[in-house]
């Protein structure tokens, strides 16, 4: 249960109270804002091995900047609060002097939901692929960061660090 403040088209302001400590603002019975607003930010701090060339691979994000509601675990964000979420991320490799490409993606429930810009060049100084989108997540949806790439025809490694390979998200609205 939650405390509900509802702008009702028949009764005007309706107020339902309980002791949950959660409050929702409703438009004619439909929740548009809740006090449960999960947000997280995490990055890769330990080098990840086993990223095969041209294989979409889940990125392990070993350190959290913040995780407001403890909804981020095992490199996966499961907010449990239905709504629209702003999500963004980046995948970066160390500098390369060979032909390469690298692309990140946000996966929803194990399937690609949004692909980042593709970094594709003969050589590059710390090539990076970044992206940002808004996804609707229901109460049991989850999102993860994946990477796809090839460096010099072989496997890839990721650049670790808060400004290199990262994933973050925040609740926008119901």
């Amino acid at each position, binding site marked *: 249960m939650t405390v509900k403040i509802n702008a009702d088209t028949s009764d005007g302001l309706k107020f339902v109270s309980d002791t949950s400590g959660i409050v929702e603002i409703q438009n004619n019975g439909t929740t548009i804002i809740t006090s449960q607003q999960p947000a997280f930010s995490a990055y890769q701090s330990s080098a990840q091995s086993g*990223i*095969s060339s041209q294989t*979409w*691979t889940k990125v*392990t994000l070993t350190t959290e900047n913040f995780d407001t509601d403890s909804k981020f675990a095992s490199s996966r964000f499961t907010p449990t609060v239905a709504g629209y979420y702003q999500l963004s991320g980046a995948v970066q490799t160390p500098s390369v002097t060979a032909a390469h490409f690298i692309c990140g993606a946000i996966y929803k429930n194990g399937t690609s939901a949004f692909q980042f810009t593709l970094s594709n060049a003969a050589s590059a100084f710390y090539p990076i692929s970044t992206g940002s989108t808004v996804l609707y997540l229901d109460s049991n949806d989850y999102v993860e960061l994946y990477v796809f790439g090839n460096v010099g025809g072989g*496997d890839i490694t990721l650049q670790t660090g808060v400004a290199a390979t990262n994933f973050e998200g925040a609740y926008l609205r119901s």
Partner: protein
Amino acid sequence: MATLVEKIKSARPNLTDIDFATTIIVQNDSDGKGDYIKEWKHPSETRPTAEELE
């Protein structure tokens, strides 16, 4: 040791790099189970059998 993508390319030599970015998805969920074929939608090349990928 050859990766799954390398084994697929060996079994289906007509495939090119672009195929693995479009019609064939090889995936690894970093759960210790390794690479696997998530999706095969190539218009002409058939999905290799497990024996062909050994």
